[in-house]
């Protein structure tokens, strides 16, 4: 198998889903740090609609694992208040699509209070939220919104592509003294009912470990083109790399892992080597991630770009329900191959 992650996945060691990796990291931190607690809709008895809080209620009880009313503004605000008072809340926004009902509490308060207080007030919140489509959940339940969160200052933004990273990034997130938006893709969550990507389920050590923010991973080495993405984009890129390899093209795949901080160096160095760049993103194309990556390279040294950089992103349309239309819009390996062929 081609990618490093995939290589790990084939080993005999313990594989987890991202959902279980998140829950495990959370439980481990809750065991050692009494200030960590979890709240959100359906995260207690149900264990989270996407499974990432399963088992926590049973182990930690309902004081520390709290179902909330459908009141995102109040409980996001409550996370800010509790975090400012010495707690380390992990709070779930069930679908990232719902951010519009509570974004003020997030971007204007959670993200800025550290600054407004000159660093005197720390707001260590982990905001977990599900992203992504592909299973016909339509326009209010399938968005990624990576660009929306990454655009605004004061929040770190994490988007793992596999369970190993998911666990380490979760541990780092919980220990971080800042708000961290932890965006997990439903299609990588290991929940069969969402049609999960098996390559996201990789070896995940039982012991606790951190993955530093701001360090992209080169998940496949290559020389002819750099494919950059996060979360599901990485899997699309890896599959495209396989297809390109069949054509004799050697693609390097960069998994950004965190969008804020963004590891521009790794992407730049890769593009400086390959001369070609394709950015893959399931978020809307315009004014988003793909633009940022391309601009980051071009502004640094446009001469490294030996061909016009390309984007394979979600088109600027609401996400349609019907399978044929949704699949037509989603990034996929073939589109990446086609983008390469355009600039080959």
């Amino acid at each position, binding site marked *: 198998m081609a990618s490093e992650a995939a290589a790990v996945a084939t080993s005999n060691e313990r594989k987890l889903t991202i959902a279980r990796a998140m829950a495990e990291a959370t439980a481990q931190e809750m065991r050692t740090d009494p200030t960590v607690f979890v709240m959100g809709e359906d995260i207690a008895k149900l264990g989270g609609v996407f499974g990432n809080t399963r088992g926590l209620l049973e182990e930690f009880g309902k004081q520390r694992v709290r179902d909330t009313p459908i009141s995102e*503004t109040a409980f996001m605000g409550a996370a800010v208040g509790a975090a400012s008072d010495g707690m380390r809340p992990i709070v779930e926004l069930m679908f990232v699509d719902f951010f519009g009902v509570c974004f003020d509490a997030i971007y204007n308060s959670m993200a800025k209070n550290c600054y407004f207080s000159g660093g005197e007030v720390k707001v260590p919140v982990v905001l977990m939220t599900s992203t992504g489509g592909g299973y016909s959940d339509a326009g209010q339940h399938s968005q990624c919104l990576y660009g929306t969160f990454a655009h605004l200052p004061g929040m770190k933004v994490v988007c793992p592509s596999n369970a190993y990273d998911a666990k380490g990034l979760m541990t780092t997130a919980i220990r971080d003294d800042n708000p961290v938006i932890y965006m997990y893709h439903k299609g990588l969550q290991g929940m069969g009912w969402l049609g999960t990507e098996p390559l996201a389920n990789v070896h995940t050590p039982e012991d606790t470990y951190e993955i530093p923010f701001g360090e992209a991973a080169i998940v496949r080495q290559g020389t002819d083109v750099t494919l950059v993405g996060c979360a599901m984009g990485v899997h699309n890129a890896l599959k495209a790399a396989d297809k390109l390899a069949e054509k004799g093209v050697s693609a390097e795949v960069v998994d950004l892992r965190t969008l804020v901080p963004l590891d521009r160096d790794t992407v730049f160095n890769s593009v400086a080597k390959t001369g070609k760049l394709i950015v893959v993103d399931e978020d809307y194309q315009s004014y988003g991630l793909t633009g940022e990556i391309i601009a980051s390279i071009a502004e640094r040294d446009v001469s490294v770009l030996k061909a016009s950089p390309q984007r394979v992103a979600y088109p600027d349309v609401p996400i349609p329900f019907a399978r044929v239309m949704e699949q037509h819009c989603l990034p996929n390996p073939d589109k990446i191959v086609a983008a390469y062929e355009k600039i080959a």
Partner: protein
Amino acid sequence: MLPTYEQKLWMYEHMLISRYFEEQIEQIYLEGKTPVFNMANGPIPGEMHLSNGQEPTAVGICAHLTPEDIVTATHRPHHQAIAKGVDLNKMTAEIFGKKTGLSGGRGGHMHIFDPAVNFACSGIIAQGLGPAVGAALSRKMQGKEGVAVAYMGEGAANQGAFHEALNLASVWKVPVIFVIEDNAWGISVAKAESTAVGDNSLRAVGYGMPGHMIPGNDPIAIFDVAGEAIARARRGEGPTLIEIETSRLAGHFMGDAEGYRPAGELDSLKAVDPIPTMRNRLATEHGLTTSEDEAIAGRARKKVDDAIKFARESADPAPEEAFEKVFA
């Protein structure tokens, strides 16, 4: 304001259409999803929120409405849509993601829009409340007939939008009825764990509007209370809040194992299923005969079967139609 026998029959028939519809959808939804349940598969992919048990809230209210009246509905919209008179063929085709669907397959089950009968719904909790106030305002400003009804679940009554919309409706004294379907659950969270008051109609006091709680999942009691409230709105006397005790006879969405439901709850709810209850009442109080009942049921079934046939036989949209209708 009690219903006539005719109105009761209308309610009963629409309850049946709704229930048959959900039963059909339930079956078809599972096509392609066994043995492995994957939402992405089958003729109806995506999430599916069935309304079994909640038919009374739909018919008791909508019996008073004309196509000119406005309904903003929820993520669980089928019963509401059927009672409001949404074109069942096009709605079913929409749920199947077909080109003949109300939006050509763009919206799906949580986004049923039928402007011919002024029906809309949304997948975001309490999102329809502000729009209902705006539509009611529009009628008032245009001097046109029509009231707006905003449906929500009891879980939605804890959203900020609830507060803002009720206050605004009252300040502007627009003709809108806020209807809470209290099915006791917001996904896995019980009402008592999410709501500071047992009875949401108490909250009406905070908005200077009348509030009513209707127990018993009873279409006739709902008809009665709604009739007064809607007449009041039509007279220009402003909004009303109504909470209706109803029951969710299925999981929150299909695939929900409902591990959170106390043992026995579902059985006791099924024992008071509003459909047989209504049937018995029509039989005892009005002498509805078995053959009359069968005729009604047959019509209901046929309507549903026709709609499903229409949907099944309709073509998929072309993939590139995804790019159309972003803008008018």
